[in-house]
């Protein structure tokens, strides 16, 4: 089990492979592997999406993905 933390200024749904699958600024559990990460709602953030490879994380050291 891997852990992802998507950081953004406000709470939004996190899109994983296009599906709302978690919340910003909260830990998200997922299987190891490659994913496309973005945010739901208005596309008023950058980058529009991120391609990530999640492996070797822990709840206290999750993979951090930031959107601004």
């Amino acid at each position, binding site marked *: *089990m891997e*852990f*992802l*933390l998507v950081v953004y200024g406000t709470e939004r*749904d996190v899109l*994983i*492979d*296009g*599906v*709302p*699958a*978690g*919340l910003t600024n*909260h*830990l*998200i*559990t*997922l*299987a*190891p*592997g*490659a*994913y*496309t990460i973005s945010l739901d709602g208005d596309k008023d953030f950058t980058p529009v999406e991120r391609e990530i*490879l999640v*492996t070797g994380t*822990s*709840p*206290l050291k*999750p993979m951090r993905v930031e959107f601004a």
Partner: protein
Amino acid sequence: MLSPGRREPRGVAFVAAGVIVIAISGLTGCAHYPLTTPLPPQKPAARYAFEQIPSTGADDDLFVCLTFSGGGTRAAAFSYGVLQKLRDTSIVRAKDGRHETLLDEVDCISSVSGGSFTAAYYALFGARIFQDYRSIFLDRNVEGELFWSAANPLNWPRLLSPYFSRIDLAAELYANTIFQNKTYADLLAGAHRPFIILNGTDLATGDGFEFTQDQFDLIGSDLAALPIARAVAASSAFPFLLTPITFSNHTTPGWYTAPPGLKHAAGDYYIDRRRYMWASHQSTYLDKGATPYVHVMDGGLADNIGLRALERQLVDPTGFVARRYNLAKASKVIFIVVDSKAGEPATYNKSESAPGLADVAFKTATTSMDNFSAETIEFLRDRQRELDQARQDVEVCKQLARTPSDCPSFAAPAEIEVVDVNLEAIADPARRTQLLSIGTNFSLPSTDVDLLIAAASDLLDQNPAFQKLLAALRSATAGAP
């Protein structure tokens, strides 16, 4: 040299035989399994997917999924006993004080083979299962009816067709006598949970084949038009006794795009072999030229307890279980795994002579099922422990950190509970042996059905995880409005 007078009767016989052959050939040529309906050119609004089936409760705070194993009528009766016990288990919802039963909270059922009869019947007909399911299925000699259906000369011409086989006869029998010719469109129209995943096995890949629209999208087919009986027949088509059910792999329409996870997982070989293999197998359906047909049989070949389908929904972040967890929709996620075991206790070791071919063949087909089932449950328990540990790590971090807000946190402190209901856990050895010796065919005496139903209730009464769940629900109720 034959005289003309003697030649005439032979000529008549020859012509008569020819007519019969042509008639049989004609009938045989007409016999074809029902073809699946291709996906329509426009994306349908309704599809048999979990997110489209409304919750039975006010929300998903208590999220309950059941799995029903294979094992003929033994499995069907045992899983029916669990449904009956959940119906008889009253709870009061903590949020609003509403009285209901634990059965009302069941959100999904994933099933295999014999368990698929119970899952499908309950999903279609709800509480009616407690009135008529025994007479309609559990107490019937379905195996005998299957035999006589195949022995009926009227069915022989159809059975001679290469495109129609015993499993198609079985599906017709189930449709007419159990499932009232209902289709997945009827399940969709019912608009209520539980959402069911009937599981088969793709003979080519050896992987699970789920009767959901997500799976049928990959083969370009509309699940809504499929009779429930055909899905149940495929899920329970035990090797050698029955033949696979065939589905056409239609070209997908323009609106369809394959899940991005399939492409991503193609590179996961060294990171997550399980995810890689799943994606690799599923991707074969996208190559329509190489895979024009899919042959599906007993789900037990890939996973005899039906748990793998739900585990993927837990570890895949886009899965409906993971989404309840990560989107803070559920505070408790419960898996009740109902396993009647694959076979009967072996008695070979009592004899000096080696087991015969039939015994070896049956053992070969079922041994891996039970071994794999145990590993599958442990895999789920490992995930449960990982998530529990993760929650504890976060709590400790918050207690020790100077600035607790610096610690990562989960959206909701959801707990996962695994309730393992297995005939093997019967405490009394004599009773355990008696129950495990009940056949896994589709014909049982009513007394055996009674024993299995009672065993399900007793096993839940003695199950520590189930009792812990009930205690937690009751303590939460103490603070309810």
